[in-house]
């Protein structure tokens, strides 16, 4: 078994303890809730879009160190990105944590992918992959639906 510090890297522990953008957005253009019934974790993602560009991203909820850090890091990298770029980042991140065929990213997103790298330790712990992707699934639901809607699934 790999060293647990591969899973709980310092950056994860830091974002888990002190999540960034852990707040609501007063009048979000998009938001959605994610729920993992397995562990009861809940996360709500709030977005402000200006046209096609994400100008602000924030989250609220409760979760383990991994899901909290994942939401925190996600909101950090999303700011200033287009919807298309956000979706590309998710697709690439999803492939990395599930061990799927890697997706080639445009050079412009290389730095963001690097920021998310510490979360990829979950791929050695299949039960924890959902913790890392919950907020991203909620993001996708928010972009798709825009409104509250039903809590999205994490599959």
């Amino acid at each position, binding site marked *: *078994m790999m060293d*647990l510090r591969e*899973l*709980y890297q310092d950056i994860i*522990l830091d974002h*888990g*303890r002190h999540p960034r953008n852990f707040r609501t957005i007063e009048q979000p253009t998009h938001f959605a809730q994610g729920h993992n019934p*397995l*562990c*009861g*974790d809940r996360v709500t993602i709030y977005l402000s879009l200006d046209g096609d560009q994400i100008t602000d991203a924030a989250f609220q909820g*409760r*979760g*383990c*160190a*991994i899901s909290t850090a994942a939401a925190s890091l996600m909101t950090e990298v999303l700011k200033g990105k287009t919807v298309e770029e956000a979706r590309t980042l998710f697709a690439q991140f999803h492939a990395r944590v599930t061990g799927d065929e890697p997706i080639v990213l445009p050079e412009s997103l290389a730095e963001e992918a690097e920021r998310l790298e510490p979360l990829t330790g979950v791929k050695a*712990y299949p039960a*924890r992959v959902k*913790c890392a992707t919950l907020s991203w699934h909620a993001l996708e639901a928010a972009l798709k639906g825009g409104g509250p809607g039903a809590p999205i699934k994490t599959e």
Partner: protein
Amino acid sequence: MTTASLRSVYPAAPTPLSPESGRGLGRGFDPRVLRREFPIFVNNPDLVFLDSGASAQKPRSVIDRIADYYRTDYANVHRGVYRLSARSTELFEEAREKMRGFLNAADSREIVFVRNTTESINLVAQSWGPAFLKSGDEVLISVLEHHSNIVPWQLLRDRIGIRLVVAPLDATGGLDLAGFEARLSQRTRLVAITHVANATGAVVPIETVVRLAHQRGAKVLVDGSQAAPRLPVDVQALGCDFYALTGHKVYGPTGIGVLYGRYDLLLAMPPWQGGGEMILHVTFDKTEYQEPPHRFEAGTPDIAGAIGLGAAVDFIEELGRDNILAHEEALTGYGVDRLSHIPGLRLLDAGQRRLGILSFDLGGVHPHDVAQVLDQRRVAVRAGHHCAQPLMEWFGLPGTTRASLGVYNDERDIDRLAEAVEVAREMFAR
């Protein structure tokens, strides 16, 4: 347990058991030695298994008995005229008789084989419920319940309009007996309550509950999932009307459980599933049903499961149920003491008496993070809401980390748990 005594129970057992295995020490048995009877620990020597509350590991005698049965005695039951089928039926009914003894029921016809505790409770809710309850009648449960003793009653509520009433806990985390009594009304027809709470280990004083309920004319169903592996259970002494348990938590196989029901009650209950095995005579117009318990056992049952469960009961009886209780109590006490010394750790309150379960919050660290660190150190526990979300809500927690004990655990396991929890605490300290 000695080879000779196990042989006497299983004359056909092909695997000789080590002669020194599990031989009693001062307190009845030595868990360390007993572990040799559990192949899982032979194959995973470093494993600290503290999740018996979810499912217990299986002794060799149970595993072998099931394999033996398939190898030497297998055929369907209650059908064939040939000798093998008669033999199989005999073994199946012998297992029923063992379960009667295990619960000290008056009659083996009071033992219905089901899949698990969940199915036991659903059987009562779906058969006894609509036959004896009407709109406005009340079923009283408690905050301590597992989802399997909540949801079947909600389904019944939605179906026939009963009211589901919930008895609160007192400040110590035990059942609030005054609050319980206050919620027993003229309309209370059934009390459905746990014997030992799966999420906290709180022991419910069933005799008192039964006395209060019967004074009001209400029947009592006891969820014995966590109690059956830990306490001697005597349904006649308890006075309950139904008692539900699952095989896999009493060191038996999965897929088999028991509903005990007082015979007069079972006799008055309609079938809940139709099929073979449960009938006397079928025409296209009308069917006559079997008497209990077969009325409630439609279709080919889990024959090997029942026989394996019988072997598990033999295993338990041979260890001695008083010895098991003494072991669980001593180890629970040791665990409470050991964990209480960890800064920031809060054990969930379990009332006046806690048995076999140590459920805790570690300063707000998410239980899945705690359990991950524990797993890294080969300590297996359960993390989350333990299928008792209303109880978690009562304590204001999304979930806990839960260590639950079995006959193979000893103080060293608790020490390993405590050391691993310390590591988790340091890792996630805020």
